[in-house]
């Protein structure tokens, strides 16, 4: 299987701190890869670095290739145009703009070969709630609705690889399950997805492959089925959750 996204030896520094220390990431075509780890493990820093984006001013090294093409040195808006689309953690939509204005900001590419295009009808079928809320401002939406708009916005950009950073943060458990199942269904239709999550249990159920990060390093990776029984996962995450 070919890799839609390939990143090698990603190093991210903030001032003197090394937040991500030489991690390789590969997202195979049509696969869902999960990335888990404790707070401060460097998950968000890493996924942001793949998109070439940050709210801070980090120094990023390493190379990122999308469908074989180098993304190095490209500004975040250029990477988004090429189909490497990030939904960041937390604030992912504009509060002053309505739902339809938020979605209309994105210009779908003219050439959608190798891309996964979604029409507005597709979006409203996927998230019927948004059709009802289309003239509401982003700031008036609930957390779950905001996350739906953020994901929909990314889908409108016709992603080649979708990067999702903690879509479940702040959502009720039922909504988390709904949103992640929707994402899994899109992957089953061919989308390639990299998902950063805190919720290890939910992630393990859905992803094909799992990465475990600790303090900026990759400590384990493998097929989800195998990672379920990995002692580090059991001990640090599933064990403590069942206790």
């Amino acid at each position: 299987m070919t890799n839609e996204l390939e990143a090698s030896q990603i190093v991210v520094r903030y001032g003197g701190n090394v937040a991500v220390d030489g991690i390789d990431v590969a997202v195979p075509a049509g696969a869902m890869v999960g990335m888990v780890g404790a707070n401060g493990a460097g998950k968000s820093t890493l996924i942001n670095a793949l998109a070439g984006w940050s709210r801070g001013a980090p120094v990023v090294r390493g190379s990122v290739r999308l469908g074989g093409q180098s993304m190095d040195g490209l500004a975040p808006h250029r990477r988004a145009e090429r189909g490497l689309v990030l939904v960041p953690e937390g604030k992912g939509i504009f509060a002053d703009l309505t739902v339809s204005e938020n979605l209309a900001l994105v210009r779908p590419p003219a050439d959608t070969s190798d891309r996964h295009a979604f029409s507005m009808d597709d979006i409203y079928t996927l998230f019927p709630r948004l059709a009802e809320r289309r003239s509401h401002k982003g700031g008036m939406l609930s957390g779950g609705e905001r996350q739906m708009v953020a994901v929909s916005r990314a889908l409108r950009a016709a992603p080649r690889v979708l990067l999702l950073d903690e879509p479940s943060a702040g959502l009720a458990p039922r909504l988390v399950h709904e949103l992640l199942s929707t994402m899994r269904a899109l992957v089953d239709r061919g989308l390639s997805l990299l998902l950063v999550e805190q919720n290890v249990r939910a992630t393990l159920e859905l992803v094909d492959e799992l990465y475990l990060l600790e303090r900026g390093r990759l400590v384990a990776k493998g097929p989800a089925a195998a990672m379920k029984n990995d002692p580090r996962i059991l001990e640090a995450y599933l064990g403590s959750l069942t206790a």
Partner: protein
Amino acid sequence: MNIAQQIINGLVLGSGYALIAIGWTVLLGAARLVNFAHGQLYMLGAFTAWAIMQKLGLSYFVAVPLAVLVLGLVGVVLQGMMLRLVMEQNLTSLMIVTLGFGYVFQGGAAKVFGGDPQAFISPVETASIRFGELWFTWQDVITLAGTLLLFAALWLVMNRTRLGAVVRCVAEDPKLAQLFGINAALVYIGVFVFECAAVALAAGLVAPRSPILTSMGFDEVILTFVVVVLGGIGSVGGSLLAGFGLGMFTALFGALVSPAYTTAAAFLVLLAVLVLRPRGFAAR
């Protein structure tokens, strides 16, 4: 004293205030930026149009659009130089940098155009209209109509088009806009070009009312500040309202009390409004 005439004077003054302020309204609203060179850009707009008329012998109606174009280009250069500060939203440095640009423009203009007052004459400034007791010029009519048209067009673009949504989203969160595939740097340049071009248009229409000097600009930047803050920062409709409000106040206060204290009185009103409505007229 004729109240109707003072109301006309107020409308004329107010349309000028609103027109001078419109660029800053968008700049502050869309880019969260200030530009303390605004007054000197006004001066530069007036002198550019004047020089085109004097040196090239072109008509006022050609010189003003050309000055708008020239100031737009100046905007590209200025924003290009400030782009890194703008992307970092380094507001303190930007205040100082724009203040610096202002002084450089003032000194440069004095060197190039000389220190004497010049007559920047619009052919329609002297063409007056009379209705009984009432008196105004065609220049006043053009300024008023131009202001209303520009504000209406701006409001439509900002609120009803994708371009407006792009500008508003960059205002809210330039970093997030990048993830939507938007080149925030380009949007900042566009907004700054609009600011410079709009102040040149304002200079072209308003400056012919009196002789122009390279040292002018401070009053304009102060009045712009009042209009923008009163209107509610970044509000297009609010600025228009505040511009006319300030014009009316200046005309009536000048006629009824004393023209000597209008600026002080205007600031007194500003203080009162900000105490009662800290976010300006447009605040909901």
